[in-house]
Each structure stands twice: as structure tokens, then as C-alpha cells.
């Protein structure tokens, strides 16, 4: 079979075309390599370690999260605003030293819920075993800046309930006063460990025992939605300043079954042009 104009065999024409296309792809790829190395600069894939997940209820194989570099690309654009909010908490849980402010990464379906809870609940509330001595250990709101327990609501000057920057944490009753109990009292140890982790060798702290020690207080399975949002929930909402009506509402929230019943949630997209107009610039959010 011949091409009528130049008398070139059609198979040769097809092969030449194919080879030319492959050549152009290879050439483009090579030019792109030059671009990423000499113009844009290569993207440094940040190694942040695996995050052991306790969200086993909703994800079958959620033993470990996906490698961090994938998460980095998917998360960094969304949560820079949230970081500004969480940055306001002066007395964060020690967990964030390693795990960061958005530790819930494995379960795509509910991680937004869980990370949003990080704004007003410290990690140990859900991730540590409850103390058996219920008379002295309980939960309470603590002021984000002063770390004083928030035991009553004050009326604002406008007449409403006011705005409180506080989060729920584990408290211990000492002489009728609530004292904040951190999940781990070895903050210095964690910082020392993190410092040596970036050094060229492991340093004096062995990784295995260190990890074991730091995580020893944690429960194997984290508290799930109905651990708080049910009649038998861990937190007495009225005791921590919610009104009876609000407490009933919080106890009856059926988030757990929403998560287990529905395959997909439909949130409004904030990434397309329509959604972008609802986003505030970062500088404005940080004011």
C-alpha cells in the first residue's frame, strides 16, 4: 500500500510519525527536566514520617497513613488559614510537637471533622485512656492564653454569651480547683529527641524506647464520635458550661452513623472559581 503523493510506503509513514511523536515527547520531557532543575528548582519532598493511625473504625487498612509527600501536596493549600487559628493556642498538647496541628490524615472521609475538633479539644481527651478516678479527673475548658479553667460563661458587653478562646482538656481537681493535666510531662524529652533526630546520627536517645515512652499513655483505639456525642459520652457537657439544651443537642448529634452510613459527603468546593470568592486572604485571617 503506497502513499499516492510521494510514493512512500504507508507503513513507513506511520512508523516515522510514531517515532517523531515519541521523539517530541522525549524532547519535551528533557526540556522539562532542565526547567525543573535550572529554572523553577526541584520540589523538595519533605519527609515527615508515617503517622500511626487510630482511626480504625472507618478505614479497613488504616494502620499507617500514606507517605507524607503525597499528603503535603494535597493539604498545604487548604490548611494555611487553619494553622493561623491553631497557632493562637498557647498551651497545646505535646502531641503536636511531632504530629503537627493536623494529625488526622488517614481517613479522607472524616479527617476534616477530626482536625476541626483539634481547635477546641486537646489530643489526650480522645487518645488517652480515661482515668478511673472520676472524682478527681474530669474534663474542662481551659483558656487558650492563660490556661485557666473556664467554669462559667460571662455575658459579653453586647449582651450575648461572648467569645471564648478555650479548648477542652483533661483536668484534675485539687482542693476544689481544676488543674490542667497534660498528656505527657516530658516536653523537654520530646524536643531533645526531635533535635537529635535531624542530626546526622541518632544521638543518645534510642528511637524505639523513646517512641514507646512518649506514647505509653495513649489508648490503643481513639475515642470515636459517639464516645462524646451520646448519652453515655465521656464528657458531661453541662458540667463544662454548656446549657442543658446545648448539651442535649451535642449528645444527640448522630455524626457517627452519618460517617458509617453514607459513602460520600458533599461539601461545597472551595477550590473552584465559585468557591474561591468565599475565602479570605491569609493576611486578613491572621489579623
Amino acid at each position, binding site marked *: 500500500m503506497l502513499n499516492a503523493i510521494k510514493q512512500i510506503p504507508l507503513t513507513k509513514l506511520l*512508523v*516515522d510519525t*510514531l*517515532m517523531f511523536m515519541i*521523539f517530541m515527547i*522525549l524532547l519535551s*520531557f*528533557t526540556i522539562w*527536566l532542565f526547567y*525543573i*532543575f535550572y529554572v*523553577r528548582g*526541584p*520540589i*523538595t*519532598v519533605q*519527609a515527615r*514520617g*508515617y503517622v500511626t493511625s487510630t482511626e480504625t473504625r472507618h478505614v479497613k487498612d488504616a494502620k499507617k497513613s*500514606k*507517605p*507524607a*509527600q*503525597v499528603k503535603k*501536596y*494535597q493539604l498545604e*493549600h487548604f490548611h494555611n488559614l487553619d494553622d493561623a487559628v491553631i497557632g493562637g493556642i498557647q498551651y497545646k498538647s505535646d502531641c503536636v510537637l511531632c504530629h503537627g496541628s493536623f494529625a488526622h490524615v488517614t481517613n*479522607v472521609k472524616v479527617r476534616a471533622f477530626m482536625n476541626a475538633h483539634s481547635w477546641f479539644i486537646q489530643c489526650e481527651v480522645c487518645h488517652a485512656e480515661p482515668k478511673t478516678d472520676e472524682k478527681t479527673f474530669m474534663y474542662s475548658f481551659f483558656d487558650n492564653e492563660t490556661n485557666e479553667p473556664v467554669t462559667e460563661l460571662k455575658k459579653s458587653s453586647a449582651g450575648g454569651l461572648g467569645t471564648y478562646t478555650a479548648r477542652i482538656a483533661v483536668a484534675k481537681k485539687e482542693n476544689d480547683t481544676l488543674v490542667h493535666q497534660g498528656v505527657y510531662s516530658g516536653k523537654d524529652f520530646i524536643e531533645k529527641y526531635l533535635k*537529635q*533526630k*535531624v*542530626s*546526622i*546520627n*541518632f544521638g543518645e536517645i534510642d*528511637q524505639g524506647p523513646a517512641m514507646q515512652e512518649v506514647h505509653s499513655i495513649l489508648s490503643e483505639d481513639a475515642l470515636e464520635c459517639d464516645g462524646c456525642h451520646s448519652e453515655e459520652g465521656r464528657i458531661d457537657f453541662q458540667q463544662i458550661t454548656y446549657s442543658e439544651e446545648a448539651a442535649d443537642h451535642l449528645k444527640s448529634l448522630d455524626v457517627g452513623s452519618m460517617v458509617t452510613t453514607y459513602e460520600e459527603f458533599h461539601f461545597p468546593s472551595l477550590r473552584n472559581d465559585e468557591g474561591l470568592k468565599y475565602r479570605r486572604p491569609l493576611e486578613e485571617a491572621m489579623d
Partner: protein
Amino acid sequence: MSSHNGTRQFVRLTLNQRIQHAIMFISTILLTITGFMLQADQGFIDLFGSYAEDVFEMRSLIHRIAGVAISAVCAYHLYYIFTTEEGKSWAVDMIPRGRDGTDLVQNMKFMMGLRKDRPKLARFFYMEKVEYWSVYIGMFLVISTGVIMWTEWIWPVFFLDVSGAFHLGEATLAAAAIIVGHLFSVHYSPHVYPMNRAFIDGMIGEDLMKDEHGEWYEEVLEKEKAHTENSDRRHFSSDRRMSSPDE
């Protein structure tokens, strides 16, 4: 050695070698695509829309599977060159020798028009040797750094940063070397365009054999001649024995 399509064909790659090559090139293509996806700009990631996360999860999985496959073929190749006759012959012929330097100079002279004939090259000439041994260095680097990054939770961050830089750097060098060097010589070089079929059927044509491996061509012909003579002699003596009345 065989003959078809009117020209003599010589065995260049055995089935075993072709299988090793096939696993290697399929893995390399997958590794290149899935590896360099991490260097993609956000605009490229946005093309996947809501599937981006799934695509990147698959990327991660495929990269690891291909990495394991190429590591396995490398391990097998070491076993192959140390334990099989075919592999030993391959490795011995690949050892760099003083004459490679001479070949390089003479070949450069030929290509610049300062010499009339191309030098008669051996089974593997200097370029092929460089390519072959570079793969050892490259594979050592990417496999070791890949393993470190795969097991990132047990390494200090310094190791991971260094590994990441080496992994990307070596991968880029390898990709560029394959495109510029290997793909040109086996696909786009006028001698073999559109492809040197040795990686498919393992054969090399007589013309190419003479042109690119002149010395090896003569060696093969000599061996063939000696083999034929021996075989004739055996046949003749065997006939004689058979016809002997004493037996």
C-alpha cells in the same frame, strides 16, 4: 547464528537476557513517570481534579512495585553473571580494557573524517561498557536511597534529606542518559532506525554486526569455521570407525 530475510543473523541477546531487559525497561518507564510526578507543578495535579488523591496513591504504589521489580532483576543479574556460563561470558566481555581507549580515539577520528575505516570493535565497545557499568552505580544509589525513604520512620531526617537529593539526582541523570544515549543508539541512530530488534528477537544483522562489532564478527566466523572443521573431522573419523571391520 541463523539466516532469514536474505541476511545472516547473529545471536546478540539470549532469551534470558531479553527477559531481564524487558523487566528493566518496563520498570524504568513506570519509575520515571511515577517518580517525576512528584516534581509536577500544582497545575498538573489540578488536571486530575477530585481524582488527584487517588492518582497519587496509585503513583506511590506503582512506584514501589516497579522499584521492587527492578531491584529483583538487578539481584538476579548478579546471580546470573556469577553462576551461569552465559552470564560469566557476558561479564568478562564487559570488563573495561586498555583497548577501549584506543577504540574511542580511533572511532572519534573516524567520525571526524580523520580516518577512513571504523575500528573493528569487540562484542561490547566502550560506549556499551560505560552504559552497562553506570547502571550498577545508578542502581546502587537509587535502590539504597529508595529503601531509606521507604522506611522513613526509622531514619534521622538528615539521612532522608540526603537520600531524597541523591534519589532525584541519580534518577534525573539516568533518565537523561537513557534518552540521549541509549534510546538514540538503539532507535534513532541511522544504522538501526526505527529500532534495533535485538531486544525483541535477540538477533543482530550481518551488516550491523560488521559495522559495530567488526572484531566480534570475525571471531564468530572463525569459531564457526573451526566448529565446522571439527565437526567434519569427527564425522569423518566416526565413519571410519563405523566402517572398521574390527568393531
